[in-house]
């Protein structure tokens, strides 16, 4: 079945799993179309269509789907439930296909593949994932060998993508490299090192966070994010909580914060969160409380919302960077 087009919105889980999904579909001979980079129009459309109480990333996702729906035969909105056998996703991810299906009129068919391997062992959790993708593949081809090959190749690409991220690239750069661009030179020119934490869809969408990374790089700051850390390293981080954090992205963000605080190599930690984000309401306070134990590493929370004015964000980042820089220079003199 060639000539079929599947649309993948460039939002939410896109930043982590797009290479895998794209490879899977193209191997089956399906054309993959993504929405454009987020823009004002999408956000405005999303705000109109989505529930007022929803968080900005969800509203933006609605906007992306709206921009895609007339151009594709299917829209891929997987139901991300649990991918690592342990941690779940935010309830809004669990109900995302339902919100899209019943919240937007005149949609092409939605591919709402359930991806869930909660409480499964190391091997059975992989089998579970393979099964889910197999079922998805059967919608497009009867050739079972081809599906298995597609699954295998998609995993290979994901592996390569993760390696690029571990080298210190941002997801958008890593995607360009996968598409054949040259590996950009290491951004090691700045005099300060910041860890920038938060959920992938807050961090890597330059429109919604008004270009945090560009601004920081311009201010002479090198950045490192959760995705640049080896996932094995994250899993081994011990926390002092009586219970595991049960959301995937929150767990990663919290553990990464602990890692950077304990390691003490960065000059400051920034946490980017979105207005109305459910899990973050708890997580950023936990990190804030943790930050009190490490007074020598400044910590700031940046909140993003539907505003697109750059001035507020710039002012905060400049003031914060200046403060950290002055502190570092002063510290160097004192030693």
């Amino acid at each position, binding site marked *: 079945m060639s000539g079929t087009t599947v649309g993948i919105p460039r939002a939410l889980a896109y930043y982590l799993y797009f290479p895998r999904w794209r490879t899977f579909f193209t191997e089956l001979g399906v054309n993959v179309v993504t929405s454009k980079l987020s823009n004002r129009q999408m956000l405005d459309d999303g705000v109109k269509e989505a*529930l007022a109480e*929803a968080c900005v990333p969800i509203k933006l996702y609605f906007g992306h789907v709206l921009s895609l729906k007339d151009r594709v035969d299917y829209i891929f909105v997987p139901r991300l439930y649990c991918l690592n056998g342990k941690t779940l996703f*935010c309830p*809004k991810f669990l109900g995302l296909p*339902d919100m899209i299906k019943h919240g937007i009129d005149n949609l092409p068919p939605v591919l709402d593949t*359930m991806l869930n391997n909660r409480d499964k062992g190391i091997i059975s959790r992989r089998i579970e994932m393979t099964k889910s993708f197999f079922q998805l593949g059967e919608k497009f081809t009867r050739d079972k060998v081809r599906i298995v090959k597609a699954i295998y190749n998609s995993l290979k690409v994901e592996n390569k993508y993760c390696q690029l991220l571990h080298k210190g690239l941002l997801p958008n750069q890593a995607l360009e490299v996968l598409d054949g661009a040259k590996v950009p030179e290491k951004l090691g020119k700045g005099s300060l090192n910041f860890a920038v934490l938060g959920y992938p869809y807050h961090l890597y969408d330059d429109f919604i966070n008004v270009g945090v990374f560009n601004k920081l790089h311009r201010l002479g700051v090198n950045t490192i994010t959760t995705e640049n850390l080896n996932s094995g390293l994250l899993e081994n981080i011990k926390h002092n909580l009586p219970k595991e954090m*049960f959301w995937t992205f929150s767990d990663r963000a919290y553990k990464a914060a602990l890692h950077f605080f304990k390691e003490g190599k960065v000059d400051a930690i920034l946490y980017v969160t979105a207005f109305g984000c*459910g899990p973050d309401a708890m997580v950023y306070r936990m990190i804030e*409380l943790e930050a009190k134990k490490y007074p020598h590493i400044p910590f700031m929370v940046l909140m993003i919302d539907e505003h697109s004015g750059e001035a507020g964000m710039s002012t905060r980042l400049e003031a914060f960077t200046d403060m950290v820089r002055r502190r570092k220079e002063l510290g160097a003199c004192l030693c």
Partner: protein
Amino acid sequence: MLKVTFPRMGHSYIAFKMLLEDLGNEVIVPPRPSKKTLDLGVQYSPEFTCLPFKILMGTYLEAIQMGANTLVTSGGNGPCRAGLYAQVHQRIIEDLGHQINMICFEAPLSHPIDFLKKVKFLNSSKLSYLSVWQAIKKGWHKLKALDNIEKLTHQIRPRERDNGTTSRVYRQAQNWLGQASTIKDIDEAYQEAVKSLNNIPQAQDRLIIKIGMVGEIYVLLEPASNHEIEEVLGSLGVEIERSMFLTGWTKDNLNEKCNEVVTCHNAAKPWIPVAIGGHGQDTVGHVILYSQRGFDGVIQLAPFTCIPEIVSKTVLTQVSKQHNIPILTFFLDEQTGKAVWLPDWKPL
């Protein structure tokens, strides 16, 4: 000596008080959430947590001021935020400089040892496990009696001849049950309460409309958090049926008109096929069941930023159209003005 307190959720405190006292603890009954509670809670809670978190925060701090040193609460396994309440509360309270024990009960079947350890900690008078079991059973019995009486008030209140009689009798009945300390006493108090509620003079010719209540469990159960919506609606002549009680929603009140006995999760399947945390799926399921049973409307209550209820609300717009049942949603936040609400209620 343990001075124990716990979150206040509707009338459940009456049963929990008895249970914890039976185990030999001094119980600090949490005060009814007030403006002061909310202000305290808002001051120390993260900005975007849901209303229940803030009210509980305030309640804990008030109870600590009253001398409590042990907080008993429940946990959860996600993905609703309530599963992390206890941890975040504990850290914030400790950060404020209070020394407390946080006893957070997880589901006993999946954490049996942890459960027994915590029961042992609270068992100040060193009762045998059998007596502890009996105390829990008695507490459950009382809770069931309290829930049943509350259900009855929902039916009596819209029909009462003199405004306010039901609420007065109901408060009295709660007192009787509060004083009952054996299963026999509880049964007696319950019978008495049912009798007095049924004896309230009723206006026969009133037009009664029926409305189902769905939504997040805390704001449904705690009247102080939902501006006593049930009482207000009742006095406007609305018979309400709440989809959730602490003792579990009853399956037996499905109307005979339903051809198939479907549970609310089954009913919700076409709309939200998997559990999405909290009571998001239940909300949708109950709306469908209410519409099948011919209710006049449904009210959804949810705290502002409640994740599962946002998902269900998005879906409910279509459910409302397809099942032809009006739905009114209230997202509850820190605003305590009641006036804004009433114009919304009256046209119902």
